[in-house]
């Protein structure tokens, strides 16, 4: 298993398989299925400053090849996260990455500040690409000047690895270049893709908040393109995410240039997914005598 280690700048992960934010709770929920410490890292559900109730009405739907969610960032807020949740994951023995979402610049900075001194928090993943919240999501990510400011100031505040999470709905190449120049450590590609769902029978929009985010197999080829472009054209470490359902999908992401990958929707299809993908990836590497996933890159 030695060869499975990957580095996200100063953070060494024991393997390149992480959970994707919002699909794995806080890491302890899946303990009922397997010891989540085996994963390379756990990325927790997005956290905001205040508790958020999330969206009313329908929140999830399945479509051909994917699912669409409009959770609306329900989360307990940073205080409860620090007080109640962090203690609960003390025994999970792997890197812990906190995903954060703010409605404005100050909120992002506040969250990073709060998390900066905690030994249990190994890195932050900054969500600037949520398609189903009114503020702090895509609208934030589309403002290039704001992104410049955000990344620079986050870098000042937060000493451990900072990961920025983008989606194809954003000018991701431009953003990735800014990130690289501002010393951001990695980019997660991709978040869900903004989508609209209509309930034909009821003649209404399916989600109260109008938009949802598309994830699952349907977005894999789009995610691969973003991973490839960011890794190759920008030259910044990329954490691949989007429709990874099997170890083969993960291999495709490594081939496209990802340093590590995240498992999202697959956790809903089978709660053991992340674990099984890790296991199968290990056999694949062994069988093919590949010593590090970085050897898989095809460019």
């Amino acid at each position: 298993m030695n060869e499975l280690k990957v580095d996200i700048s100063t953070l060494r992960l024991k393997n390149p398989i992480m959970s994707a934010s919002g699909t794995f709770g806080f890491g302890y929920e899946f303990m009922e299925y397997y010891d989540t410490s085996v994963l390379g890292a756990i990325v927790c559900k997005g956290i905001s400053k205040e508790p958020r109730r999330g969206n009313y009405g329908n929140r999830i739907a399945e479509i051909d090849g994917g699912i669409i969610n409009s959770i609306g960032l329900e989360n307990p807020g940073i205080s409860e996260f620090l007080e109640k949740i962090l203690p609960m994951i003390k025994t999970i023995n792997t890197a812990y990455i906190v995903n954060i979402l703010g409605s404005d610049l100050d909120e992002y900075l506040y969250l990073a500040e709060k998390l900066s001194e905690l030994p249990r928090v190994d890195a932050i993943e900054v969500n600037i690409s949520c398609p189903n919240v009114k503020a702090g999501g895509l609208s934030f990510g589309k403002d290039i000047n704001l992104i410049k400011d955000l990344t620079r100031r986050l870098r000042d505040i937060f000493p451990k690895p900072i990961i920025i999470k983008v989606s194809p709905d954003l000018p991701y190449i431009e953003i990735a270049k800014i990130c690289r120049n501002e010393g951001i450590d990695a980019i997660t590609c991709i978040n869900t893709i903004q989508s609209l769902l209509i309930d034909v029978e009821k003649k209404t929009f399916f989600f109260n908040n109008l938009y949802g985010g598309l994830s699952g197999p349907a977005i894999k080829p789009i995610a691969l393109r973003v991973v490839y472009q960011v890794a190759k054209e920008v030259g910044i470490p990329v954490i691949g995410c989007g429709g990874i359902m099997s170890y083969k999908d993960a291999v495709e992401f490594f081939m496209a240039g990802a340093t590590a990958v995240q498992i999202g929707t697959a956790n809903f299809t089978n709660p053991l997914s992340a674990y099984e993908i890790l296991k199968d990836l290990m056999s694949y590497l062994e069988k093919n005598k590949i010593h590090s996933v970085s050897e898989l890159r095809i460019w």
Partner: protein
Amino acid sequence: MTKYNQLKVVHVRHYKANYVSLTLSYDNQMEIPMPGQFFMLKPHNTLLGRPISVHNFFRILKKGYIEFLFKIVGKGTKNLSELKRGDYVSLWGPIGNSFPTFENKKTAILVAGGRGIAPLFFLATKLFEKRYEIHFFYGVKKSEELIHILRLRNMSNKLFISTEDGKRGKKGLITDLFKSAINTYTSSLKDNLLFHDQGNNAVCYVCGPDIMMEKVCEVSLSHKIKTYISLESHIACGSGVCLGCTVESTGGQLFHVCKEGPVFDAEEIYCK
């Protein structure tokens, strides 16, 4: 304890009106399911599992078996209905809370609408074992949908049936039958077991379409009968991580069916 598993199909029965019962060989490493709890069953042709309540759990020569009863309504249930004896189904569970029972309330009113029979039948068998007095209300659209009538009759002190086509039981909606029955009880049969102590001795359990549950609870709560309902929502993970399975109380509070439910105190949902 194992929560995710592949279980072998030992029996498939196709009822009328697109109902299917699926009996699986249980694994004794898994938690024993309680009435009200559900499992996520994974069809082959969908991305997400499908939540199905436990319809029965029994042992034959120490070996456990679990039974599900579901109606074919879309592609997932269609796919599950095509399982054959000897096939394996991936599933995870048991999930969620269960219908609470009380030592001091030995009168139970069960109200099932359509496929709401699935969990309430299981509940009835448990209550029967515990020697509850069971008053079972069971309504369906078409009389063909009625399932387990004989067994229900054996377990219940009184069984009320309504069908919208009027071919069996009383013609009409179960909510109307329930309402008139309760009113009769409370007005003319004050000393009926069901209602001494102003209903404090009775518990009501309801499962069915949203609108039916709301109407039933309106009646039962107005008579101060402790009432539990089993709610549905779009379940994606069934593991408490996606936060997709919310339902809303009349007061606007959000609950997660797979974590705080699927069984709720009716007062929590309808009275805030």
